[in-house]
Structure formats: structure tokens, C-alpha cells
């Protein structure tokens, strides 16, 4: 039977790809719109959606576009598994299915008046980009905005055009680093945590927002803590293998929390209360 879609959270809605932008050799940014405008949803910075390639499966992907901007929803996706690889074979006009949005959100109102440090590694810049662009759209409400971004090598930096645009905005500083330089790279080489001094990192009236590979988040959070950032001033978005996105399938359960519904955004104080043996990072 065909049921009422509104009371079945697991049913995705038909969508189509309107544009694909290549970020790196294995990362692309997809613009999506719903086939039926009635299915469209509003979302908050840091939330994610479940994207289906029917026949391949479904994956949770953070929404990288900003709720402060009109325009299509964007998802930046690495070809890593079955579904994401299938997505990389698709182009404008191709069909996908979508449901969401899910999860909590990055803080916004409480960040106003504060200095913000965005610390990202690799594709981890994608969820932060939603909040970054939201902040930049009312930059006068915020203190200094510093974006510290690292990748394995220069070719794996995402959003390169946008990084240049951000740099040009008064009050915004962008610091890039790579693990391994390639010819033509004149910037620093090292982990993103090696950018603290260059960025004149200071905990005063500041909040740091992190996303990246688990090992990066782990060391960046500990490093910021060592530099005097309070646990509530270190905010991160966690990633976890998940299926349903709505707190039922169990995969992302850590202690008594679900990353999908209680997160994916947590502050360091919450993360420290999670059972370490369950592998938070």
C-alpha cells in the first residue's frame, strides 16, 4: 500500500541533482533540489540529511550550504563507499532521494560577539562551511573569524575558490596547511594544530568549532584545551557510522547518546562525559 509519507520518517523524497562541482580527485559538491517543492525542508547549520541512491543504499551527509542563503542544498561528498561512489557517477538531472534534516545544529546566537576559530581537516570543512557562511552573512555581529584548515596535500583542499573569497573579507583570516607539500605549495607544512601560533590563537572571548578526521579532532580539542579554551568553548561535530539517522538503528550510540539525534554537534564537556572505551573519536 502507499502510505502517508508524512508519518513514515524512513521514506525519502525524490530529488534531482542540479549541479556538480569537483573539489578534489575524490570529492565533489552536489547541488540538489526536490522534485516536488512541497517536500522541501528548511534546515539549520550543522544538520545532515540521508541521501539515497536507490538500489545502492543510503548515507548520512552533512548539509554544507548555509541556511542564511537562498539556493539549492549542497552536499560535499567523498567517494568512499558503495553509495557515495555511485553518487560520483551521477550528474545534473539525475535522480536521488532525500530525507531529513536530522541532528542538532551548531550554536549561532550564542556565538555573536565572540571571536571564532574554525578548525577543519580535509572534507571536515564541509559541515563547518554551513556555519561559516552563515556567520559571514552577518559578520558585523561577530568578533574575529579565523579559519584554520589542513589537508593531506594541496590537491585535497576543498572549496579552494571560496577560501580565497573568505580571505578577502575584512575581519576574516584563513590559514592553510598540508601534511605533504607538492610543487608550487608555499604555505606551511604540518598538522592543523601547528597553525595555533600563526593564527595568534587566544581563548579570550573565543569559541573554537572543529570538524575533521577523528584523530585531528582528538588532538585539536586537547590542544585548544591546553591553550586555555574552556570545554564549552570547544565545539565539534562528530561522525559515526549510522544507518537510520533517527535514533533507532543503534549504530551511532555512544553511552546513552545517539550521535544522530543528540548530536552530531557536541561540546568538549559532553564529549568528555562519553565513555572513552566506546571510541568517541
Amino acid at each position, binding site marked *: 500500500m502507499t502510505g502517508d509519507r508524512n508519518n513514515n520518517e*524512513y521514506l525519502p523524497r525524490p530529488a534531482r541533482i542540479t549541479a556538480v562541482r569537483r573539489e578534489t580527485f575524490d570529492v565533489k559538491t552536489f547541488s540538489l533540489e526536490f522534485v516536488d517543492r512541497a517536500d522541501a525542508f528548511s534546515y539549520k547549520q550543522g544538520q545532515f540529511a540521508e541521501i*539515497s541512491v*536507490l538500489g*545502492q543504499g543510503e548515507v548520512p551527509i552533512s548539509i554544507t550550504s548555509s541556511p542564511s542563503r537562498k539556493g539549492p542544498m549542497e552536499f560535499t561528498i567523498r567517494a568512499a563507499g558503495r553509495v557515495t561512489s555511485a553518487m560520483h557517477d551521477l550528474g545534473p538531472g539525475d535522480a536521488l532521494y532525500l530525507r531529513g534534516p536530522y541532528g542538532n545544529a551548531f550554536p549561532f546566537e550564542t556565538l555573536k560577539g565572540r571571536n571564532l576559530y574554525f578548525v577543519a581537516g580535509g572534507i571536515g570543512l564541509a559541515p563547518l562551511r554551513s556555519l561559516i557562511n552563515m556567520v559571514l552573512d552577518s559578520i558585523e555581529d561577530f568578533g574575529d573569524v579565523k579559519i584554520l584548515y589542513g589537508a593531506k596535500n594541496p590537491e585535497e583542499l576543498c572549496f579552494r575558490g571560496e577560501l580565497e573569497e573568505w580571505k578577502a573579507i575584512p575581519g576574516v583570516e584563513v590559514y592553510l596547511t598540508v601534511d605533504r607539500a607538492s610543487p608550487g605549495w608555499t604555505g606551511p607544512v604540518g598538522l592543523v594544530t601547528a597553525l595555533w601560533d600563526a593564527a595568534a590563537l587566544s581563548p579570550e572571548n573565543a569559541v573554537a568549532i572543529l570538524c575533521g578526521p577523528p584523530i585531528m579532532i582528538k588532538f585539536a580539542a586537547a590542544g585548544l584545551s591546553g591553550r586555555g579554551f574552556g570545554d564549552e568553548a570547544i565545539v565539534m561535530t562528530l561522525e559515526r557510522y549510522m544507518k537510520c539517522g533517527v535514533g533507532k*538503528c*543503534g549504530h551511532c550510540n555512544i553511552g546513552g547518546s545517539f550521535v544522530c539525534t543528540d548530536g552530531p554537534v557536541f561540546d568538549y564537556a559532553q564529549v568528555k562525559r562519553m*565513555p572513552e572505551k566506546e*571510541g568517541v573519536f
Partner: protein
Amino acid sequence: MSTYLLRKTDVRPLLKEASAVWDIFAPLREGVGDVNFKALPKDRLAEALENLVLDDEPTLLSPKTIFFPQNETMFAFGSGGIREQVESSPKLLFGVTSCDLSGLLFSDGFFAKDFPDRYYLSRSENRLIIVKGCLKPPRQGSCFCASAGTGPFAQRGFDLQLVDLGGEYLVEVGSGKGESFILAHSAFFASGDGRERAAEAVKRDATATLGPGVDFDKALRLMVTGDFEKNFARIGERCVYCGACLYVCPTCTCFNVVDRADGGSGSRMRTWDGCVFEGYTREASGHNPRPSKTARTARRYEHKLKYDPLVAGRSGCVGCGRCLDSCPVGIGMSKFIREVADGTEEM
């Protein structure tokens, strides 16, 4: 609470009459001898009723399988888009044990909260549960309902509850739905007035057969304050990670989701999954935040005994004993609870 009497010889005729309205699920002996909750086939009812088990034999799987089957289709897809697959037939569950009722009520709460689970709720929205309390423990040495506060007779949550008085059952009514069922089949029911004291004695005797049990409440308290890493490491080394304990558990609800497709059409399915498996938390990158046996073992016990009480306000273990009975290497909740409460080494 009103009570009625139902003669044991009337159980099969009653179920036959009720099958006009309900899909009936009851403990049936299957070909290989196992007892499980199975739907009575309407076209072979008399034959199936021959296999109805009315004594306290253990069912291999819990009745959760009726509302949360091992495999189920969530929707079909093809050229016509997505077609939701839901099922909501009226289901009468006959002969559910008190501990299994607790398991169902626990799962009801889990699937209903936050984002309601359409599949589970739709399967269970039109159900009638007839509990039959145990006179003796079905899994002697493994089950511990009295310690867990889930049996051998239920206090609430049932539609009807049967208390075995020998040749007949005293029928306790727990809901309006249960009362309506009795009115609809009134020829089978006589007044239970005057037999309640006999039923209370049966309940007391049944509880007395359960033996010393385990100190469940002490274990739940210690799970919050104590350190059981050594237990988890030892049990984790012994475990063979077959997942049997998860599949038979009345409150384990984890699932995986997969698409099955042939050309442009197919279906999205969900299948049981379990937290003890190594691949359960492995990400597409290969990174696995919880690979160790110790951590996966801890997850299972702490979820049921530490986090469920914190989050859901009740233990996720109902004391049915199926995990120990199904484990090929002798691991089970009753033993773990003894280890926690008494500081012993049981496994």
C-alpha cells in the same frame, strides 16, 4: 479488576473462534521440536492448534519477532517511485510470558519516542496480548524474572492474563480491549468471582519455584559506580561473536539497512544487526572507533544495565534468560549480574 474463568479445554475452540477476527500468534511446537511464537495458519487451523504448547516450555525467540521481524521490507522502488510496505493486521498474542510482555513494552517505548518507527508501530497498533504467567521457570537456571521485577506474573501492561488453576485459567482483565475480547467471546468465559485467592496462591507458589535469583537492583547500582573492565575483557575473550544473544533478546532492536535491486526496481530492507559485531561501527573509510572485543562486550552489558536505566528509566534486561540458553560458550546476563553484584567470576 474483573476476573473470569476459562476452561483449558476451551482454549483451542476459543482461539478458533477468535481467528475469524484476529491473526493469532501462539507458542507452537515446530517440526524440529523448537517452540516459537508463530502465526496460526487460518487454512490449517485445527492441525496447527494440535501443536499449541500450553505448559511452561521456553520459546526460542521472543515475540519481538512479530513486530520487528528479522528481515522486513521498508519500501519497494521502481519506475513508479517509492511504495511504502507496512503491515497492520489485528494480532492476538496468546501465551506471552510476563518477562516477554516487559520486553514488548520496553520496545514499544523505544520505537514510539522521538521519531516514531512506522514499521514497528504499524505492526503493533492493533494487537491484543494474552499473558500466561509461568508456574515454573521455563529456563531454569538462566531466567530470573522475579529478581528483575518482570514476573512470573505481570502487574500491568497486559490485555488479559491467565493464571493456571489446574483444569482452568483465572483470567485477569488488564485493559478495555481485554474486556471487549471477553464480551465478544462470552460463551467461553464464566465469572471468576471467588477464585482470586486461589490465583494469588498459585502466583506465590510460582515465585517460590524460582530459587534464590540474582541481586538485580544491586547490580544496576554498581553498573553506574563500579569498574567492570576486567569482566568485559574476560567475557570478550570468551565470546565467539555469533550474535545469538542479540537475536533472541526481547529488547535488542538494532538493525542494518540494505537495498536489494534487480535492474531499476527493488526494495529497501532492514535486518537485525548487533553491537557486538566488529563491523557494527566500522566506517566507509575503514576507521573503526570501537574495534576491541572488550569495548564491544562492554557496550552490550552497559547498554542494557547502565544506559537503558538512565535513558529509558528501566533496565533493558527483562531476565528472560534466553541469552545464556542460546550461547554456545556459556555467557549470559544472569551470570554477568552475579559477577557484578557478588564480585564472583562466573564465565
